[in-house]
């Protein structure tokens, strides 16, 4: 049984803040950040008002897909500590209302982006919403441990949408930004899942540590990290990033690899620690390395995109490129 029909209803009335929570504002802020980076890196003159509307549409589209995700996943959200307080599983918002909000905001964001900016960007936004809400949420998440690998494409597309909004085209450099986020996703989420796998197991979500075990997950984190970190250097050689970017990507990449190696050598996710209490973000002693990689992965990706953004806004020197 999926969705919220089997969930208990609460007497607490829905507040507007609950509907805002359905849009996952924190995820939305990351989407906006990467979309703006794509838009600025495109270096094409765009009317600032239309640029702001494009960013608004991308943000609302991301929120719409989050609402659709919370509608469909309410049953498994109710079983996990990290998500059981969300508006639908907590009974503050009815599933049908979350569905309606997601559908309405999807249509609003796609149509407004298409009519005001361009239809390539709107088409990419529509694809992203459908990919996240249908392909990832309804299909992959419950059926394969590769869920976050393939589903990561939805989170990787915002810079491409931003680029398309600014130029009406999506050149190789736009897809390079997409590829960086895409390759970042597996080590990032698997590091998290190493110390939250009990929750996923309880909810029946086939995350990699649940299906393949912690040892295999740690090995795959290392493999993806070995692919991800050199990829982060590529923008410096395609004219997208400059000297500062190269320094940040190289320095951060070394730290990322060291942390991934530590996770590989650790026993993160292996066995339950009897001293563990029931706190939401408590981490078993053995999983500290996984937590460190998870935290640094967020910082690293943020630094990469912030550096690109700063270089293009401040017109810092390029590395050379070819």
């Amino acid at each position, binding site marked *: 049984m999926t969705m919220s029909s089997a969930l208990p209803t609460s007497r607490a*009335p829905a*507040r*507007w803040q609950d509907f805002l929570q359905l849009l996952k504002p924190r995820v939305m802020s990351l989407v906006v950040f990467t979309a703006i980076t794509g838009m600025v890196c495109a270096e094409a003159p765009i*009317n600032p*008002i239309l640029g702001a509307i494009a960013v*608004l549409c991308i943000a609302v589209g991301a929120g719409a897909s989050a609402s659709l995700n919370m509608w469909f996943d309410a049953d498994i959200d109710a079983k996990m500590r990290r998500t059981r307080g969300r508006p639908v599983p907590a009974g503050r918002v009815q599933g049908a209302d979350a569905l309606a909000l997601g559908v309405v905001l999807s249509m609003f964001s796609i149509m407004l982006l298409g*009519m*005001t900016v361009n239809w390539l960007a709107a088409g990419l936004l529509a694809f992203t919403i459908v990919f996240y809400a249908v392909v990832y949420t309804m299909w992959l998440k419950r059926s394969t441990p590769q869920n976050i690998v393939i589903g990561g494409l939805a989170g990787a597309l915002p810079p491409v949408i931003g680029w398309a909004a600014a130029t009406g085209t999506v050149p190789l450099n736009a897809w390079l930004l997409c590829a960086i986020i895409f390759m970042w996703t597996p080590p990032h989420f698997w590091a998290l899942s190493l110390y939250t796998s009990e929750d996923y197991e309880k909810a029946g979500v086939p995350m990699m540590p649940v299906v393949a075990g912690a040892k295999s997950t740690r090995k795959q984190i290392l493999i993806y990290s070995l692919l991800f970190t050199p990829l982060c250097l590529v923008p410096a050689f395609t004219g997208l990033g400059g000297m500062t970017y190269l320094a940040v990507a190289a320095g951060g990449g070394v730290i990322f690899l060291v942390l991934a190696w530590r996770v590989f050598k650790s026993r993160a996710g292996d066995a339950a620690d009897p001293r563990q209490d029931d706190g939401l973000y408590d981490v078993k002693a053995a999983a500290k390395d996984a937590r460190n990689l998870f935290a640094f992965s967020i910082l690293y990706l943020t630094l990469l995109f912030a550096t690109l953004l700063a270089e293009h806004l401040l017109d810092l020197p390029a590395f050379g490129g070819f």
Partner: protein
Amino acid sequence: MSDPQNEGPVDAKARRGRNIALALGLALFMVLVFVVTIVRLGASTANG
């Protein structure tokens, strides 16, 4: 949704908050449509 005729103060406050948020959203949408129209018209006029 609660019945407005028989709701308590907490329900009424929540409903008022939802209504205000919806009204602000609709007002923002109107402003957006107006601004986009002006920008688009301006661009078309400038291009001849």
